[in-house]
């Protein structure tokens, strides 16, 4: 009973309207991972995986942009931050899962160029992920303010844009997608 109440309270908190009146859609980390659609050939499966990764990368970038705009609001507080941070982490984790799937498919092709591209993009995600560590440290030290959140969200958004560009370029270069 207690756990049901806790769950209900958590769901209510997650669905609470944001400072600008928008309602967020949250990623459920416990939901089964949606596998990329398998195609009739390994190449088709890989193309599907690439497309799914691109979609998820766009979702992460957009989530970062929305986060930065919300954090600009004067009434943005610690509760909102925790929700946004959790959402962003979950979306980023979903991108990681999707990208890892794509990487596995690409590596099965046995193309060295693809493997190098995968290593590079993987390192890129690790580097972008450092921003989570920074925010966590600032938050734990009680030193996090709105301006820092806005700036970091912007860094997330623009870094993701750069990563997406590299992903597209590499996909085209190694013939993964088109």
């Amino acid at each position: 009973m207690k756990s049901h109440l806790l769950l209900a309270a958590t769901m209510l908190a997650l669905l609470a309207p944001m400072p600008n009146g928008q309602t967020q859609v949250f990623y459920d980390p416990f939901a089964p991972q949606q596998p990329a659609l398998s195609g009739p050939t390994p190449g088709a499966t890989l193309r599907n995986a690439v497309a799914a990764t691109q979609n998820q990368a766009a979702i992460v970038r957009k989530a970062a942009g929305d986060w930065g705009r919300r954090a600009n609001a004067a009434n943005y507080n610690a509760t909102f931050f925790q929700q946004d941070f959790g959402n962003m982490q979950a979306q980023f984790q979903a991108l990681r899962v999707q990208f890892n799937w794509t990487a596995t498919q690409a590596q099965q092709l046995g193309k060295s160029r693809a493997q190098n591209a995968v290593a590079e993009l993987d390192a890129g995600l690790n580097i972008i992920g450092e921003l989570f560590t920074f925010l966590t440290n600032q938050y734990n030290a009680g030193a996090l303010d709105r301006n820092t959140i806005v700036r970091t969200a912007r860094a997330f958004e623009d870094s993701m844009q750069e990563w997406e560009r590299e992903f597209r370029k590499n996909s085209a270069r190694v013939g993964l997608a088109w």
Partner: protein
Amino acid sequence: MPHGSRHALARSLPAILWGLGSMAILAWLTGGCASPRVGSYAPKPGRGIAEYRALVREAHQAVAATVQALEALAQPNTRTSPHPALPGFDRALHQLEVTSVKSRARAEAIIARGQAYFDEWKENLSGITNRALAQAETNRYARLLEHFARVRQRSGEVREEFRPFMNKLREYRARLDRPSTASIPATGSETVKQQLEAVTASGKRVLQTLEAVSTALDAAEAEVRAMQASAPGKESSP
């Protein structure tokens, strides 16, 4: 391995060294020498070095701009607040955040995979039956491996310096938004001024490590050019 292919291999070795843009050659090495696409895939020797050099230059520019912005912030502020150099610093920091993702990712990928290229190359060397040629190729391999190891080691030093530099930059910038704490020592018992000095010094160390990579690249390029000049493939067509 046919004689002509050995010559093609000798000319391709410098390109393999850097990994960037030379994956098709590696695929050729591991997949056998009969591929008719070798010639069309083979990048010009030394292109990888040029690409890596461009990467280092770009990183150097972004870090130098940030250090310059930090030095401007160290100038006495005649106005009240904020410091007039702050917008410039914000631009430099943001630019560094974004450009460093690509630069660091590429450098880390090279570090992670570089050794694998040389392992492949070494395996290929063991298949050469002509003793004199095998000796010559092994010497080339050893010389280029030495250069690669130096570039890799210095790239690793950049990585080790860069990450704490970025952390310090972000922390310093976050602290500037809390003017009430500016003169109070932070958790690390540093004043803002001391924090600025520390982050500037950290940035200068990053610049030095990047310059060391450039020096290693220069030496490697000189070696590659010397090898190209003396490669047996120069005298005959594959």
